[in-house]
C-alpha cells in the first residue's frame, strides 16, 4: 500500500488531469487570436486603399476623356464652318466613341464609390470590434494572472495547491476560447454583411452584339449632331475664319484611347 504523500499526490493528479490540458496557456491563445484579428483588419484597410486608388485613377481618366471630347466637338464645329463636312463627321464620330467610354467609366466610378463606402464602414466596425476584444483580452489576462497569484497566496495559508486551481483555469480557458470564436465569427460576419468579400469582376463587361448596337447608335448620334451643327451654322454668323490645323486629318490620327476598363492591381 502506498503512503500518505503518494496517495495525496495521486488524488491531486487524477483530479487535475480530468480538467486541464497543461500544454496550453490561455493568455497565449488570446494574444494569438488578437494578432489574427489585427491581420484581418489590415487586409480590409488595404482593400479600402486599393479601391480608393482605383477610383482616383478613374476620375483622372474621365477628366482626360471629357477634355478630348470637348476638343473634338470644337474641331467638328470649325470643320463645318469651313465647309469640310467630311472632317466634321470624322470628329463627331470620334467624339461619340469617347462619350461612350465616358459613360462606361462613370458607371464604374459609381460602383467603386459604393464599394469604397461599404469597405470603409466595415473597416470602422471591425476596428471597434478588435478594440473591444483587446480590452476584454487584457482584462481576462489580468484576471488570470491575478488568479494565479491569488492561488499561490491562498496556498501558503490554507494548503490549497496549484493542482486545485488548475480546475478553475480550465473553466477560464473555455471562456477565453468562446470569446475568441465569437470575435472571429463576428469579424467574418462584418465582412460578409458589408459586401467586402464580394467579387467585383463583373464590371462593365460587354458582348459583341451590344458593341455593334452601340456603334450603330453612335452613328445615329453623329448624324443628329451634324444636323444640329448645320442648323446652328445656318442660323448664326459663321465668321470663324481661324485655321483648323488642329482638326486636319493628319493631326487627328491619334489612336483612340481604348483602355477604359478598371484594371485591378
Amino acid at each position, binding site marked *: 500500500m502506498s503512503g500518505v504523500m503518494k496517495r*495525496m499526490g495521486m488524488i491531486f493528479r487524477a483530479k487535475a488531469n480530468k480538467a486541464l490540458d497543461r500544454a496550453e496557456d490561455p493568455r497565449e491563445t488570446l494574444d494569438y487570436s488578437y494578432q489574427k484579428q489585427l491581420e484581418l483588419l489590415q487586409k480590409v484597410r488595404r482593400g479600402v486603399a486599393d479601391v480608393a486608388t482605383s477610383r482616383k485613377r478613374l476620375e483622372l481618366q474621365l477628366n482626360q476623356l471629357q477634355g478630348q471630347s470637348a476638343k473634338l466637338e470644337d474641331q467638328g464645329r470649325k470643320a463645318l464652318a469651313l465647309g469640310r463636312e467630311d472632317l466634321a463627321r470624322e470628329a463627331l464620330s470620334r467624339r461619340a466613341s469617347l462619350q461612350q467610354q465616358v459613360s462606361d467609366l462613370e458607371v464604374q466610378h459609381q460602383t467603386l464609390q459604393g464599394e469604397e463606402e461599404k469597405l470603409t464602414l466595415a473597416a470602422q466596425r471591425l476596428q471597434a470590434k478588435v478594440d473591444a476584444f483587446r480590452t476584454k483580452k487584457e482584462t481576462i489576462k489580468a484576471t488570470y494572472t491575478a488568479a494565479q497569484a491569488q492561488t499561490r497566496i491562498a496556498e501558503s495559508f490554507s494548503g490549497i495547491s496549484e493542482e486545485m486551481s488548475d480546475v478553475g483555469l480550465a473553466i477560464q480557458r473555455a471562456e477565453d476560447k468562446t470569446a475568441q470564436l465569437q470575435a472571429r465569427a463576428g469579424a467574418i460576419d462584418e465582412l460578409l454583411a458589408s459586401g467586402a468579400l464580394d467579387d467585383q469582376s463583373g464590371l462593365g463587361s460587354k458582348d459583341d452584339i451590344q458593341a455593334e448596337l452601340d456603334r450603330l447608335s453612335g452613328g445615329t448620334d453623329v448624324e443628329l449632331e451634324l444636323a444640329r451643327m448645320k442648323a446652328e451654322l445656318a442660323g448664326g454668323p459663321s465668321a470663324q475664319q481661324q485655321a483648323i490645323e488642329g482638326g486636319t486629318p493628319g493631326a487627328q490620327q491619334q489612336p483612340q484611347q481604348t483602355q477604359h476598363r478598371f484594371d485591378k492591381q
Partner: protein
Amino acid sequence: MIVRIMGEGQVELGDDHVAELDKLDDELLAEMEGGDGEGFRRTLSALLDKVRELGTPLPDDVLEPSELILPAADATLEEVRRMLSDDGLIPG
C-alpha cells in the same frame, strides 16, 4: 522529483532520497488508518523535517506539478483522513 508540503510550498528532491522517505510515509499511513493521533503527529513532523532537510525549495515564482504531496505541518489525522476519503481533495 517535486514534493509539495501543503501550506509551505514545493521542494525538489533527488530520486535517491525517496526510499528513505518511503519508510516514514508508510508508517504515517499506518498510524492514520489505525487512528493513532499522537504517532501520526510525530511521524508527520519527522517526515516533513526530512523533506525540508533533503530537498531544495523551489522559488516562489515557479509552479511545477507536484509528484508527491504532504499534508501541512499542523494537519490533524482527521483532516488528512477526510482528504484521502473517496471524495478526494476536490469535491466532485
